[in-house]
Each structure stands twice: as C-alpha cells, then as structure tokens.
C-alpha cells in the first residue's frame, strides 16, 4: 500500500515512527507548524522552530528515505496575544523560499475568539500576498462547528483565495458538507479520542464521495497513532474497497492537492 501522510507533527515523534511509516508504505510526510503543548516564550523560539521544520526535520526524515515537507504559520492556540502573534507572522516570509515549504498552515481558530480571528485574517492575507496554499486547522470538540463556519466566512470574504488551493482539516460528519460545498478540500484526522476514527472516515467517504478529501493521522506529542492512515487503508479493504480505491484516497488525493505547489515532488 502506498500512502502520503499529509499532516503529522514529526518533531514530536521518534525515529521508530519514521521507520514504521516507511515500512507501512508512506511516500512523503507533510508537517504543519503548530503548538508545542506549551506557549513559546519568544518570537525567537518560533524562528528556531521554523529552522527545525525547514532544515533539520527534512534531514532527519531523509535518513529513512522519506521526503519531508512543511507548512509555516503561528497556530491559533498562540494567537490570543495579538502583538506577539503579529511578530511571529512577520517572521514567516523569511522562510517561504525554503525548498520544502508548501504554504501557510495550520492556521485557524481554537476557541473562536476575536483575537484568534484577527490573526487568522492576517495569515490568510499573508498567504494571498505571497500566493501560498493554505492548510486550516478547525477547533476541537464543541468548538468545531462554530469555528468551521467562522473560518469559511473569512476565506470566502477574500476574493484572492481560491478554494481548490485550501484544505480545511479535522472535518467530521457535522462539518464536512459545508466545507466541500464551498469548493474547499477537506481533511479527516484519525485520532483515538477526538476528531475522526478510521471507520467513520470511511463512512464519510462512502457518503460524500472520494473527491477533495484526504485523511491524516496528525500524530503529535499527545495520544495519537502515526500509522493511522495505513490502518485506515487496511480497514477500507476489510470494508470491500478495491486496492485502487484505497490508493485514490490515501495517495492520489493528497498528491493531487499538494502538487499544486511545484515544490511537492516525489522521487
């Protein structure tokens, strides 16, 4: 089975995870910038993180033969302090020319506050000015519905944003339709306790079709399963999907979306 892991926080994972992913058929991994589990103490802390994402982590992945790409931004969990967040956003363009940067992400909302919204709008503008693709994080649990609606409003209000170059991640049954109906791509995240599970992700695919959808493990420093995309492939086969249908969702779809950026090239 060939697959792409389009959303994983590999800086939090071990070399064993890299090895297991490659053994399971992973062809590329993409890492959006996100929260470290604690707030960084300075803008320079983000500069170091962006260096890690653009320089060190691709080298670490290369040791396992795995192409590594990344997305850059300040995540919504650290966007409540607007002045601080603006300084981090100002840092991002320095790194946009790095050869493995795919775009701006994962931006979005967390608690759906006005400050988060201001920083989201600022980063959508940043993406538009630099002609970058966008990866959007949608909030957790009870906040997801409202956060998805607010995010769609921001994206639709900016006429420079082309929906087919934006993926809205962490959709579930109550948000997937509104995302697809507006022409955006949608990502399903396979977490053990929140977001989606493999069986539900397959239900969503069987309900809404297999276009403009991808699945990811979003594995990070919390309880998460780095091989969940591959596991879902196994579950799809158990549910009667053909090998070609599995490959369409696990490999072709993310490949199609990500290849809109010419930097996304697989060996």
């Amino acid at each position, binding site marked *: 089975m060939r697959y792409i892991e389009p959303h994983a926080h590999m800086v939090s994972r071990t070399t064993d995870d890299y090895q297991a992913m490659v053994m399971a058929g992973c062809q590329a991994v993409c890492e959006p910038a996100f*929260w470290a589990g604690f707030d960084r103490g300075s803008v320079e802390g983000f500069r170091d993180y962006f260096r890690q994402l653009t320089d060190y982590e691709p080298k670490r992945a290369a040791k396992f033969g795995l192409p590594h790409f990344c997305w850059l931004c300040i995540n919504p*969990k650290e966007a*409540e302090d607007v002045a601080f967040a603006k300084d981090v956003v100002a840092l991002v363009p320095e790194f946009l020319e790095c050869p493995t940067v795919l775009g701006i992400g994962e931006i979005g909302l*967390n*608690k*759906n*506050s*006005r*400050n*988060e*919204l201001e920083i989201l709008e600022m980063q959508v503008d940043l993406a538009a000015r630099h002609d970058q693709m966008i990866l959007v994080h949608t*909030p*957790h*649990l*009870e*906040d*997801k*519905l*409202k956060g998805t*609606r*607010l995010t769609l409003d921001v994206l639709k209000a900016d006429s420079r944003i082309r929906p087919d170059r934006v993926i809205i991640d962490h959709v*579930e*049954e*109550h948000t997937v339709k509104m995302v697809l109906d507006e022409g955006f791509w949608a990502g399903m995240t396979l977490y053990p306790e*929140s977001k989606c599970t493999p*069986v*539900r992700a397959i*239900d969503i695919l069987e309900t809404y079709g297999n276009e403009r959808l991808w699945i990811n493990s979003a594995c990070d420093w919390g309880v998460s399963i780095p091989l969940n995309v591959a596991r879902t492939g196994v579950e799809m086969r*158990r*549910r*009667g999907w053909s090998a070609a249908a599995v490959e369409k969702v696990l490999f072709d779809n993310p490949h199609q979306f990500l290849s809109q950026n010419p930097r996304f090239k697989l060996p």
Partner: protein
Amino acid sequence: MTRQQILDLDYLDARSKLIDIAAFLDRVDRAKGEADFRLAALKTALRQLAESTSSDRAAQTLLAFSDPTKEPIAKAPGKGAVGAWAGASDAAN
C-alpha cells in the same frame, strides 16, 4: 455491502461501545459529588440518538454537543475544549 455483511463486520464492536457507555453512566452514578453540564449533554445526545430515524445520526450527535452560536467570543478563556457546550445547560435553565 449488504446490511448482513455490515452486521457481521461491526455489530460486536458497536455492542461493546454501547455497553461501555452504560457502564460509564453507572460509574458516574456510583461516584459522589455534583456532575456538570457534560453529563446532561451526554444524556440529551443519547435520548436524541435513541429516537432518531434519520441516517445522519453521527452528524446529529456531534451537533448535540456543539456551540451553535455565530459570534466570536471576546477572549479565549484557555486553550482546551471539554466535549460539550456549557451554554446548552444555561439556555435550558
């Protein structure tokens, strides 16, 4: 797939998860002190699920736990989410 095939594949898993929920509610009953809005939200969602005849039960269950309001809040109260919207019990009171 036929309904029979899906039952063969996933019935025991669904049955097991349902019993887990029943045991969780028993565990909460046995414990001391006050519960909070999360328990009420879970019971409301369970009631709706039991009565539902539509084929979008997963979406409806997620909606039962969701903040339905449209305006951004003034300030993020913290970073986490708890799984149910506190405003639902405020609205019911």
